[in-house]
């Protein structure tokens, strides 16, 4: 078992997933509903970045920043057009959640209409891997880990060192009290949508850079993103990061494990190598989720 390679694969996967999970958990924390369209916002942004990069010829880094900015506004617009109206009429979280599912389907099909369902790639040349401690990693993957780490530090600072972050935490704790303290909730919610969508775009673009980009990508990544969010404790951004890390590590480690020593009971039996079939990889996320929730129903970091 190549631990160094497992750790590298884990870090790359966790960096991608956690940026998506942060946005999802933020929306849940403030508005108390699971936004099923979140990963589709991320893909929409990644497709904007594709247009800026491949069609307009912009540098990829700038293209992603610009796409995050544009998609941030898309997030606000969708909220103003749909979710805000539902909030105003006192719609329950389950109504908002189902509406988000509809929004996701509409967005996915709109993207398919505009960009077709063909796969797309950014203008990044194929990269030869570097060898670190016997494990292989490409410069792009190093970049993904660094950007993921910096984005998380920036998020922490934003949440704890800015008035916006404090206001957001106040609304999360008690929105009525926050309103009574002259915090403009709706204004903060707008900013929250911008931030959640923009972070999603960075995560989505990183997945697209490392793998592929196509309109249905959001649907293909929604399960691990939701698992990471719930695993860490839905509503807790640090939980989302930890959840992503746990999930990525478990996926990579369990598939690499050889269960023969366990089965052989120290030489009692003589069974050859036994590994979990890679066909069960999608089930691993759920198994880990169920095991953690059995012992900690609120997720790893959520206290209430």
């Amino acid at each position, binding site marked *: 078992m190549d631990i160094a390679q497992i750790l590298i694969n884990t870090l790359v996967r966790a960096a991608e997933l956690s940026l998506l999970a942060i946005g999802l958990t933020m929306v849940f924390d403030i508005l108390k509903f699971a936004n099923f369209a979140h990963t589709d916002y991320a893909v929409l942004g990644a497709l904007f970045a594709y247009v800026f990069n491949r069609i307009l010829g912009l540098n990829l880094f700038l293209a992603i920043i610009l796409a995050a900015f544009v998609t941030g506004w898309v997030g606000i617009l969708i909220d103003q057009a749909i979710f805000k109206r539902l909030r105003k009429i006192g719609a329950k979280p389950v109504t908002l959640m189902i509406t988000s599912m509809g929004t996701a389907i509409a967005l996915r099909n709109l993207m398919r209409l505009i960009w077709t369902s063909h796969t797309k790639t950014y203008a990044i040349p194929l990269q030869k*891997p570097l060898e670190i401690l016997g494990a292989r990693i490409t410069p792009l993957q190093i970049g993904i880990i660094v950007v993921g780490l910096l984005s998380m530090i920036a998020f922490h600072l934003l949440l704890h060192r800015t008035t916006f972050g404090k206001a957001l935490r106040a609304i999360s704790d008690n929105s009525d009290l926050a309103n009574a303290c002259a915090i403009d909730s709706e204004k903060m919610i707008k900013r929250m949508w911008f931030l959640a969508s923009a972070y999603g775009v960075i995560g989505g673009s990183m997945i697209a850079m490392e*793998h592929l980009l196509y309109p249905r990508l959001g649907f293909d990544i929604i399960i691990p993103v939701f698992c990471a969010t719930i695993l860490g404790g839905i509503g807790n951004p640090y939980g989302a990061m930890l959840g992503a890390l746990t999930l990525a590590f478990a996926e990579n480690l369990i598939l690499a494990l050889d269960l023969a020593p366990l089965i052989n009971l120290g030489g009692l039996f003589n069974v050859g190598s036994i590994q979990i079939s*890679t066909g069960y*990889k999608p089930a691993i996320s759920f198994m880990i989720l169920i095991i953690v929730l059995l012992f900690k129903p609120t997720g790893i970091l959520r206290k209430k």
Partner: protein
Amino acid sequence: MRKYALMLAITIMCLIMGFGVASAADTFKIGGLVPITGTQAVMAEDLSTGLKLAEEEVNAAGGVLGMPVQVIIEDTETRPAPGMDAARKLIDVDKVKVLTGGFSSGVSLPIAKLCQSKGILFVVGPPTSPLFADVGDFVFMMDVLDKFKGKEIVDFAVGDSGKKKFGLMFMNNAFGMALREETINNLKAQGAEVTTDVVYELNKVDYKAELQRLFAKKPEVIIGTWYAKEGMVTAKQAYEMGFLEVNKVPWYCPEMVSSYATAVKEIPDALEGVKGLTPLPPGLLYTEKFKKKMGRDPITAYAAMNYDAVIMIAMAANFANSTDPAKIRDALWKIDDFYRGQSTGGDKRFVGGGVQGFGKYERTIIKGGKIVPY
């Protein structure tokens, strides 16, 4: 005045509806299943063109029993559930009695069972799972079965590489599992060892753990197959992980076109030297017609199977002097002897279970960003 206007409107409506019914009854409809979206969408234009070229050709030759042929194309999304929805729509709404096309065995197999239960004829285009042969007498196939491909790829890989330790990577669906089984059986028959046997799920964005597993026990040769999207991701990740070094560990793929249709365009350098099987190029007649219509070369020979399917259905219906699917089915067994097709070498004779018994595949290699004969 209003009364007259209403009467006029009703009359016009009746005329339109009557015309619609008349024209529907005078058309011989064939349902065409194509993966317009999803993991195999890259081939959709070719596959649809194959169907439409045959439709045009049959109509130019007088159609079926004097009626024009209409191929109604529906999207399978390369997934079983939408594929079934598309088939049900064609059967229940469009009232087609004959279906063709389909791309993945995993998508087309449940459709074949539906057709058999309803007495609808399904002339399957490119799918190759041997399970189709057991569905029933309303199912025919236009491509050779996986067992032919399984043997052919093993003969190629063992003979060409001269090595005996194999790592396998196949998708978890009807097509992948059937081909995997045939590959394993043939490897064992040749005295080769399967060191790792990786089964992967479709529609994932990360296959690093699978690749890690594939190479964990140091295989000397890789045999695997993918769909276009998964082929692209796997090739890219294998290259970046240092696993796609064919001089050290050669890769053989039983389905070069469907696996690498996207990757060979996007990352040709990564795939340089990968070898495998490709259906024989379509016949010259088909290729010329395709080029004239589309202004480019066909990207896949599989579309010619759809073309052959429509032509054979039309021939069988004319031969049977009927559009009844059971009679077309019986006629297919008679016309296959003298039809010279445009796919898999041209011999389209059916053998037991309605499968193709004489098709051929070509040994190919990726060189300079192209799949060329080896």
